[in-house]
């Protein structure tokens, strides 16, 4: 495990809250959270989360690092930004959830390898890095087959009709992926950004 935050193996890590305040994108605003629950109450998908954002933020304060980074809350966020605009303390909740998800990926938690959103994000960035553009066919294809050959085939077949409709309406093309001209340039920029990110030991 490539641990970035302190003492990764302890269930309660009292330094975790400090780590989040100082290293997570928007994390410093979390100090302002007054546990009102406007975020959890605004969440369209809250019922499908292990914990709403309000509870997750209290768990951060309690140092429950592993429970936070393995909860499905960080993977189920639909990025609707309801909570962000409603938070009376201006906590940028969506950004924090995304960066916590990234932390879970970087720390190599098993849940972060299995989560739908992590698999999808991996496929998505693969396309963005390789071609400079998102190829919806490749992203969904790679995502489906990340569950294994049989499951990939099943998911692919299950969405055959949707794909056909998209092809028929010329919203999915059949040729090579759309790509930018300066792929090499973009890859160099991204590699350097990654290097700086690692140098900081955090998400900038």
């Amino acid at each position, binding site marked *: 495990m490539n641990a970035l935050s302190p003492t990764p193996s302890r269930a309660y890590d009292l330094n975790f809250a400090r780590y989040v305040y100082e290293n997570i*994108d928007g994390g410093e605003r979390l100090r302002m959270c007054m546990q009102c629950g406007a975020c959890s109450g605004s969440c*369209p*998908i809250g019922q*499908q989360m292990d914990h709403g954002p309000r509870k997750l933020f209290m768990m951060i304060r309690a140092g429950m690092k592993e429970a936070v980074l393995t909860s499905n809350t960080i993977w*189920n*966020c*639909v*990025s*609707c*930004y*309801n909570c*962000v*605009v409603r938070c009376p303390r201006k906590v940028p909740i*969506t*950004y924090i959830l*995304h*960066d916590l*998800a*990234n932390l879970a990926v*970087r720390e190599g938690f098993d849940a972060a390898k299995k989560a*739908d*959103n*992590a698999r*999808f*994000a991996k496929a*998505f*960035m693969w*396309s*963005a890095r390789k071609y*400079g*553009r*998102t*190829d*919806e066919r490749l992203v*969904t294809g790679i*995502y489906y087959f990340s569950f294994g050959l049989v499951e990939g085939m099943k998911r692919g077949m299950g969405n055959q*009709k949707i794909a056909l*409709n*998209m092809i*028929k*309406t*010329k*919203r999915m*093309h059949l040729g090579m992926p*759309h790509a*930018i*001209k*300066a792929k090499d*340039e*973009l890859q*160099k*920029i*991204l590699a*350097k*950004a*990654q290097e*700086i*990110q690692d140098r*900081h030991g955090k998400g*900038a």
Partner: protein
Amino acid sequence: MSRTLTYYPGCSSQASAVHLDKSLRAILPPLGVQLRDIDDWNCCGASVGHIEAGHLANSALSARNLANAKAAGPEDVVTPCAACYLNTHYVNESIRGSEQLKGDLNEALGVVGKSYDGSLHVRHICELLVTDVGLDAIKAQVKKPLTGLKVAGYVGCQTVRPFANTERANKFDSYDDPTFLDDFTQACGAEALPFKMRTHCCGGSVSVMSPDKGLHLIKELLEEAQKLGADVISTPCPLCQTNVEMYQPEINKRFGTSFNIPVVFYSQLMAVAFGLDPVKDAGLDQNIIKSDKLLGM
């Protein structure tokens, strides 16, 4: 008076939302706006890039676009895509607010001899239409009013959240009860239904990757639109349009419903109302569920 702005079409303009791009390129010139694409633009990272790449690398995607945009000129950058707007606007504002981030991103851009100073203004095309173009100019272009067409205006999330009500978005509308889309509908001569689900989420990319988690959200939207007797649902968001349209057969299968409601872009409605070609300009042939009523107008 015509003016040229820098245009960021986004990846969906070449795939699931070709008809958004097509109809915008048709309606904007008559409204006095010429588009000049960002040279060799790349993906913005959408809602998931951050999770895999991290904050800085994800921001670097937008930084390259901004550097290329600035190299072409100081004009405002406009984009029709909710996610492109969200990311590009956010990174631009973050660069303006943080010397550290500006330094880091310029260090990354520097490896290929590029740089960006944070001086551009990144805007959503809907905001441009509201603030700069104005409803009167839109109405002035209407040659075929869409009389009798009942439209449920579905705004979605990221077009208005979290920026619509900020200074840098010219406070063009509110987060929870935006009216701009209904204004567009009415400007086209159609009827704007009181669609109270206008800012409810369709599940975004979560509906794409995990339909089990998101389809009930889309079902609720469709139920409300059906109850109101909507002829079409109109939306500004590429992913909303695709999700709400393509999943209708699957939703019917899972929930025993019988939805078959066309979902179009506001710009397609405008193209038809402006008297432009319904196929070549409005791209109505690219909707999976066709609106006979709209096609017959």
